[in-house]
């Protein structure tokens, strides 16, 4: 593979756009796992549900991004209810629930996957929109519009969530509940309700992120598996609980993947996220920006 600076520049630009997207799909996990310590392995599967939801709405002519926004409240409510169930079954029992909690989420992953296969079939599905198919020409560089769209939405989502968590009362409560539940209770806030809110937000964000996934590439039911690697890589790389760290980590992953894709070929790309994850877990499990 011939190396040239043009190609490298293009790979980096592509990687930044892709990285923004990876950050967006990891935001929910940053909240549910990073802040609340819930072993939510089902996060990418819910992401895929959002993508398929946007696809279904797209069959009625709804633009993917609009579909994502429409699905957000639905996912929020579903997430809040789901957390309540999880809390009642697992967290309150407090037994050696590590195995059981993880097993539960892995089971959920497969149920969602099979559900999607049964409902939609194993075929790839993709969306059509005005901004899918063309690209921005900057000299010899081509940046596909769908990537630019994905990146913009991602940026807005990351900013919005970050502001919410740092500027509003309940946002700060979410950050606090992971650190000191007792103190929160003393302030008159019910930690369970706060966690419900947090999980609801994490799931709601997934709806829009899923719609963005649909814009980016065709979807099929087993896609969630590689996103387990990408989302956990971003969250671990960032360090648990850091929202701005999530954005930076996403960019790092995006650029790394893009460079490997360009210069080593598509056959090595699947290992980048997981490889980076292993390296982080082995040498710096607390991440780059963690608490």
């Amino acid at each position, binding site marked *: 593979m011939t190396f040239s600076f043009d190609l490298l520049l293009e790979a980096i630009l592509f990687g930044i756009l892709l990285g923004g997207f990876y950050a967006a799909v990891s935001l929910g996990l940053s909240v549910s796992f990073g802040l609340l310590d819930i072993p939510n392995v089902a996060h990418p599967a819910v992401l895929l549900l959002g993508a398929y939801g946007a696809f279904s709405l797209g069959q009625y002519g709804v633009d993917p991004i609009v579909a994502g926004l429409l699905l957000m409240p639905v996912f929020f409510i579903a997430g809040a209810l789901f957390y309540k169930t999880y809390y009642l079954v697992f967290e309150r029992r407090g037994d050696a629930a590590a195995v059981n909690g993880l097993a539960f989420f892995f089971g959920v992953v497969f149920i969602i996957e099979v559900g999607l296969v049964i409902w939609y079939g194993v075929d790839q599905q993709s969306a059509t929109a005005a901004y899918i198919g063309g690209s921005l020409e900057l000299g010899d560089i081509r940046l596909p519009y769908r990537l630019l769209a994905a990146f913009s939405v991602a940026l807005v989502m990351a900013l919005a969530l970050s502001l919410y968590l740092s500027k509003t009362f309940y946002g700060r409560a979410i950050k606090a509940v992971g650190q000191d539940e007792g103190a929160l209770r003393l302030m008159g806030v019910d930690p369970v309700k706060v966690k419900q809110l947090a999980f609801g937000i994490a799931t709601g964000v997934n709806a829009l992120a899923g719609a963005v996934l649909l814009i980016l*590439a065709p979807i099929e039911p087993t896609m969630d598996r590689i996103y387990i690697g990408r989302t956990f890589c971003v969250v671990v790389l960032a360090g648990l609980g850091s929202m701005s760290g999530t954005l930076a980590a996403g960019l790092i992953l995006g650029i790394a993947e893009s460079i490997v894709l360009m210069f080593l*070929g598509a*056959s090595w790309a699947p290992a980048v996220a997981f490889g980076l994850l292993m390296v982080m877990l082995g040498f710096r499990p607390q991440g780059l920006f963690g608490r």
Partner: protein
Amino acid sequence: MDLSRRKLIGTASSLSIASSVFSVPAWANNPIKIGMSMPQTGPLGAGGKAALLALKMWVEDVNGRGGLLGRKIDFNAYDDQGNPANTPGIYSKLLDVDKVDLLIAPYATVPTAPIMPLVKQRGKLLMGNFSFQVNAKVKHDMWFNNAPWNDAEGWFAGFLQAAKDSNSKTIAIAAQDQEFAQNLANGVRAGLARTGLTSVYDQNYPPTTKDFSSIVRAIRSTKPDVVFVASYPGDSVGMVNAAHEIGLGPTVKIFGGGMVGLQFTPVMESLGSKLNGIINYNTYVPGMPLKGIEDFFKRYTAKAVAEKVDPLGYYLPPFNYATGQMLEQAINATKSIDDKAIAAYLRANTMDTIVGPIKFDAGGERANQRVIMAQFRGVKDKDLEQFRSPQRQVIIHPTADKTGDAIFPYEQARKS
């Protein structure tokens, strides 16, 4: 005759008349079981469903004529989703649980490759279904492939001719890492020295690849004259879309080659004008003179529309119907359903089918190849019926079927 014997004869004859009126006809009691799996969902599903419809048509036609050897045909096709992990289990089940008499292979190389060792071990005849060189390593002597190609040289000949005519010197190769694409690409790679083309880009990408813009970008940077792609339907569409989104660059004269999927009419309809200029393989283009095929298409289209399957059915269905015809001729000639007997007949004879005469070589592939290389021209968006016209796919090779010359460079051909 005394009374008791008359009574006996009377009772016997009335009983036999009664039994012949009320019993199930013998032909349906002892059916010939033909079994297979077919990709009906998954990446190959669009083609598989059309192929299956043609096979079912053949079964209906034969049963309407009284079956084979006076026995009804019992036909069953499972869905393997185009996934090679599913076929060994399905074919084991067909042999040991369903106990079928005869096997047909699933459509396409990838689902067929895993069952080749199995059918060889069990000594079963396998009627191949549009696979490419899948028997090359296993060398099963009871394998017969209905596709009109043999090896990479035959396939590549038309594409190579276009490259020569356009004075091309360099080639970029992109091939999916799976049995079909690798067989084809390796054949092309092996023959490069003879062609005078130098490879400037050569990449195998895994089947899970969804984003082709990086591949297209990398190809562009090497400024090739020819771009050869070997891919399955999902990535063929991906590559065509990426070529439009990112652009292959002004140097490219010829683009196409071995992209499966660009022959399925639903795919052709959805890609529309993005197809223009691509030079790709096919097995049948409207206008080719073949006896009996027009009548087949009429009947096929009626059923296909009802079942929401590829309505034009140009690529696979006629050849699947031909598979049935070959089996019919072999079984009727040898008066048996024994695998070895049928295999011997198929090897020794030329069979007459709706896609013309079919003759096999020692490896079970076509002795009389007829791979069509055609260039898409003047294709409009969202129009299915336009593909009934021979002008949408101009045949540039073989000479016997040629309807026009290739237009290059690719950028110019796109606008044709």
